[in-house]
């Protein structure tokens, strides 16, 4: 996602009213935003919303605006989108089961493939239950809004993803945020929650803006001390972080203390969909009470077939994981040595965020990189922590060592063009 104008993850209250003055047009509340976007585009900057990939050549290369472009902002961490086994499974399912299910999971929308992908998830995480949603967004929306009810408390990191915030907003629980990755701030809030109230702590393994990881082991130990249940969103770590690719909690040895893991098929798995895995003995009741699961059509058979095949291959992807770590270290060091300021002092994930001095030079740099033939994500306030402008790079296991060197060269040239490097 990039943005001529973009949104904060935390939802804002949009104020209505003033009907006589605006002729009753409910869209008039967006006028300032429309104006801001028009002003920005009038400066001649490339509209980031206008980027179209005319042809996708591989997980790491596409034809964008007629130019062959290296993709470094796709979250396609494990490069499964063009895996031959994955594609074959999808084609077979299209032939055998058709293009779509046209139904809810609880009515006519559960096919053999939906069961198979949930079994693959149980095997992948070594957990008892798995529930597949139509998107990762719906997984957070559904689980959070359903398990935390009126009178319960949700304690969450202030840098949480939009889907987590929206899950909070949709539910009836009291919502209490704490400063990003601040263990002490989290504990203070847990301590103050009225006795007898239910508590859900929500954390992410990797935070996607800066690519930093959470101190899950310490945080989960504290959450448990106060009797809270713990939900961890591992969207950006699945398949890559941890000995079996189960995520940051596995890597830090605390996966057994996580009550609910939320994940997605739209990153490492390489398709679309979302899920929750859990060992909770009563977990299956979620299928009946979770509205974003019940009141929507299930994933198409081809999608669940590609996901199941991909997940099973990711169980044995140690070599790819090692190569991706190598690329992350090389890119982090190359950009640091070149003089760029990065979001983390050491490579912590497959995301490397390059901090821009301001929005104007950030936008110039983003465009200069596109002209070099490199696509990254431009992230800008108010979507970013501390109102930073970031160029977010997400590496793929299919990026070759040569491509990584090419990328570093492109950054150095574009950095000089945009006046960021001396």
């Amino acid at each position, binding site marked *: 996602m990039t943005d001529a104008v973009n949104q904060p993850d935390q939802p804002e209250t949009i104020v209505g009213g003033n009907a006589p003055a605006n002729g009753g047009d409910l869209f008039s509340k967006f006028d300032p935003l429309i104006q801001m976007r028009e002003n920005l585009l009038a400066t001649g900057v490339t509209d980031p919303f206008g980027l179209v990939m005319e042809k996708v050549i591989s997980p790491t290369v596409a034809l964008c605006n007629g130019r062959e472009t290296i993709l470094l902002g796709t979250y396609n961490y494990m490069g499964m989108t063009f895996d031959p086994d994955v594609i074959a499974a999808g084609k077979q399912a299209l032939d055998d089961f058709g293009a779509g299910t046209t139904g809810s999971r609880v009515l006519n929308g559960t096919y053999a493939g939906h069961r198979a992908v949930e079994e693959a998830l149980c095997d992948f995480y070594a957990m008892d239950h798995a529930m597949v949603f139509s998107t990762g967004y719906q997984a957070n929306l559904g689980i959070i809004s359903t398990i935390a009810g009126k009178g319960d408390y949700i304690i969450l990191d*202030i840098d949480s993803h939009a889907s987590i915030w929206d899950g*909070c907003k949709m539910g009836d629980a*009291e919502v209490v945020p704490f400063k990003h990755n601040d263990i002490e*701030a989290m504990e203070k809030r847990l301590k*103050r929650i009225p006795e007898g109230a239910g508590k859900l702590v929500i954390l992410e393994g990797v935070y996607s803006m800066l690519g930093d990881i959470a101190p899950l082991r310490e945080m989960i130990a504290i959450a448990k001390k106060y009797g809270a249940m713990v939900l961890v969103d591992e969207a950006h770590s699945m398949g890559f972080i941890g000995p079996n690719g189960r995520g940051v909690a596995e890597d830090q040895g605390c996966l057994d203390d996580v009550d609910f893991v939320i994940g997605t098929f739209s990153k490492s798995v390489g398709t679309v969909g979302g899920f929750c895995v859990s060992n909770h003995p009563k977990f299956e009741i979620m299928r009946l009470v979770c509205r974003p699961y019940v009141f929507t059509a299930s994933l198409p058979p081809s999608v669940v077939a590609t996901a199941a095949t991909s997940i099973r291959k990711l169980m044995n992807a140690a070599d790819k994981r090692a190569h991706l770590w190598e690329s992350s270290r090389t890119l982090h060091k190359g950009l640091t040595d070149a003089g760029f300021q990065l979001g983390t002092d050491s490579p912590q994930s497959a995301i490397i965020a390059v901090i821009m001095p301001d929005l104007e030079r950030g936008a110039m740099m983003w465009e200069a990189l596109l002209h070099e033939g490199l696509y990254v994500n431009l992230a800008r306030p108010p979507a970013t922590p501390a109102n930073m402008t970031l160029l977010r790079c997400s590496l793929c296991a299919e990026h070759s060592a040569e491509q990584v060197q090419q990328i570093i060269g492109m950054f150095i040239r574009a950095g000089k063009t945009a006046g960021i490097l001396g």
Partner: protein
Amino acid sequence: MDRAETSARIAALIEPFNKKGVAITDATRFTDDLEFDSLTVMDFVAAIEDEFDIIISMNAQAEIETYGQLVDAVVKIKG
């Protein structure tokens, strides 16, 4: 704790966040008058929570637009 004492303690806490030195009254609005953005709100709320050892959930924050409403809310939460 009475309202006047609560108000005095909150007034002291608001100082570092009141960058433009706006004169604070019960009617002062956080967004419109003090121009608090979401980051400032988080830090300011945390300061108040720590001072009074309370939680002001986002649900409660949504009902608070003015300084006076904040003082009332803290008095109520403190009981």
